[in-house]
């Protein structure tokens, strides 16, 4: 599984190695400026959208962007760990859907039985997180025990999650939960709403975990070369389990964020979101071959994606163009990265 990723990653190694002493420091320096480029792109976008329609530059619009960003950011954060470990998690979109739907049923029952909104919501959060965690553990089981490659393992759970959501809901949204849920998605701290604030906190914690903790170092080591990681005594299976459990857990919470945004559990809520998460991680500078990635890059990548989607609506571009523009962005960002790493030019 992750072995494959490591082997194909090796050719990139000597170049980064040239930057001398610490590999980690080298990565840090190279990606350090990738972040700057992304920030410039984000600012350019805001300037461009504002110059076409001045209404873009408002707390209301930024608030909406952050509401749309919150669930994608959550799964992109989980995906960063997975991608750095040399894997991929395709199941996060449908995990969001499934956990949102299951939480919706639980909250419907709780609220129907007279449970106060706050408690009902809390039960919903725990349920959604639990469902996500279970899906993550199933992924880990399929990868570690059944020896499936992550792509196949998570493709299977993607289908199962999406299908189960349709089975449970029979195709329609599940409402009847706490009526105050939707008001939580109203921005109150500038453009930030409760889910937004929650996601920012999660990002800070996850960033510290990825870049400052022993667990984070293990994840980079496994993604870089899982043979070497095993050789130095890292239990690869344990770390892989943690990585996919974390990704599942965050997707579960993402499902709850979607519930709060929609006010109901929708069987199509998370469809296709996994691709946005992967795109965000890749735009952020992570390498799908593992061992390279930054949390700050992921955050900027996800912000760029949600900003462009909103911006196109506000400047009234035909919606059919949306996917094309996002695709061009991904290609441009990755090309940029390769150019900057010097792999694309001999000069």
């Amino acid at each position, binding site marked *: 599984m992750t072995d494959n990723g490591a082997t194909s990653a090796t050719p990139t190694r000597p170049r980064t190695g040239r930057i001398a002493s610490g590999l980690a420091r080298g990565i840090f320096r190279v990606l350090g400026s990738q972040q700057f480029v992304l920030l410039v*792109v984000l600012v350019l*976008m805001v300037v461009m959208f504002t110059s076409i329609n001045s209404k873009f530059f408002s707390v209301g619009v930024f608030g*909406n962007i952050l509401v749309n960003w919150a669930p994608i950011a959550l799964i992109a954060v989980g995906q960063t760990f997975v991608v750095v470990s040399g894997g991929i998690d395709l199941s996060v979109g449908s995990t969001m859907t499934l956990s949102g739907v299951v939480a919706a049923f639980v909250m419907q029952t709780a609220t129907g039985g007279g449970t106060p909104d706050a408690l009902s919501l809390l039960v919903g959060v725990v349920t959604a997180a639990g469902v996500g965690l279970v899906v993550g553990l199933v992924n880990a089981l399929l990868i570690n025990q059944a020896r499936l490659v992550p792509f196949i393992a998570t493709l299977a759970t993607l289908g199962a999650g999406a299908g189960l959501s349709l089975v449970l809901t029979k195709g329609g*949204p599940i409402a009847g939960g706490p009526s105050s849920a939707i008001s939580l998605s109203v921005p109150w701290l500038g453009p930030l709403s409760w889910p937004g604030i929650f996601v920012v906190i999660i990002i800070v914690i996850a960033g510290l975990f990825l870049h400052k903790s022993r667990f984070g170092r293990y994840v980079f080591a496994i993604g870089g070369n899982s043979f070497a990681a095993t050789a130095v005594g890292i239990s690869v299976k344990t770390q892989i389990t943690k990585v996919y459990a974390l990704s599942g857990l965050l997707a579960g919470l993402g499902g709850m964020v979607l519930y709060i945004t*929609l006010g109901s559990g*929708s069987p199509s809520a998370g469809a296709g979101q996994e691709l946005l998460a992967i795109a965000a991680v890749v735009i952020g500078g992570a390498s799908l071959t593992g061992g390279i990635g930054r949390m700050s890059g992921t955050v900027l990548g996800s912000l760029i994606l949600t900003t462009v989607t909103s911006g196109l*609506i506000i*400047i009234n571009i*035909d919606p059919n163009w949306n996917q094309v523009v996002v695709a061009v962005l991904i290609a441009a960002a990755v090309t940029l990265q390769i150019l900057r790493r010097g792999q694309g030019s001999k000069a």
Partner: protein
Amino acid sequence: MNKSQRTITALASLSVAVLGLSACSNSDAGDSGSDEKLNIAFVVGASADPFFLAMKLGAEEEAKALGVNLTFQGDATTYSPATQIPVVNQVLATSPDGLALVPTDPDALQPAVDRAVASGIPVVNVDTSVNDLKDVTSFITGDNADGGAKAADALAAAMDYEDGGTFQVVVGLSSATSTTNVARLDGFKKQIADKYPDIEIAATGYSQSNPATANTNVNNWLTAYPDLKGIFAIDGTNADGASSALRAKGLAGRVALVGYDAYKTNVDLIGSGVITALIAQDPAEEGKLAVRYLVKAIKDGDKADIEKSVTLPNITLDKSTSAADLEKYTYVQSAN
């Protein structure tokens, strides 16, 4: 190249890309910046659906005639509240003067409508509606229940219905909750109960407005119900999926297919006998009326003469329909 040169080159190429994007958008949204014109926002379900394309053309024509700006948005391909709500929120954040909305779910879109009305933006519902129409300026739709009944009539006629026989049919829907789907199915069921007691609805399925999913559903039904006599495809995408499945299995004309919505491709299939009949709506007229009523509501307030509820008739198109009528009701797909 050293690293900083590479960074500069990369940045420059990206700026070019971004600027290119802004240039192409200018041509599309050139006049959205002017201040004196009214800004009408129109949010639909799946904007690439020919039904909504026809609605867009109608709305654009009316907006041009009345001299107002029109923002027409919606997820390109997915008919779902999950994709629609972010679009509605973003459109409302630009504080338009009026909002025409095709709600993809009667519950999920209610808060957005309430918020718009609370901030003084009149809302018209088109095609489908939210649950609480109290604050909605007008609800413009086709007579879906009547359309469902007409579909039952057309299907019964095509199957040579007689009391005492067995007539198994299936219904392909897009969603369990879209109000148009529900109304058509109710009308269809009621007509069967009243007039065709021996028609049995063997199965119903959902396609989420995806013709490929609709096609798979019909393929499976054809396998599961070998004696299937008829299919009611409740909207255009379901009719697409069902007709392709019938043709692939060589059952075109042998299993009666009554569809909804006059997509050009499907109208052509009436001639070749694949589709028995189509129930057509008038989305372009719905779009026009929505814009007209919004402008009236904004300019004249409560005193404007606006019908609170408009129901446009549905028409049955079949082999006996004149060429002129077929052309009139076929959904326009491009302006001119």
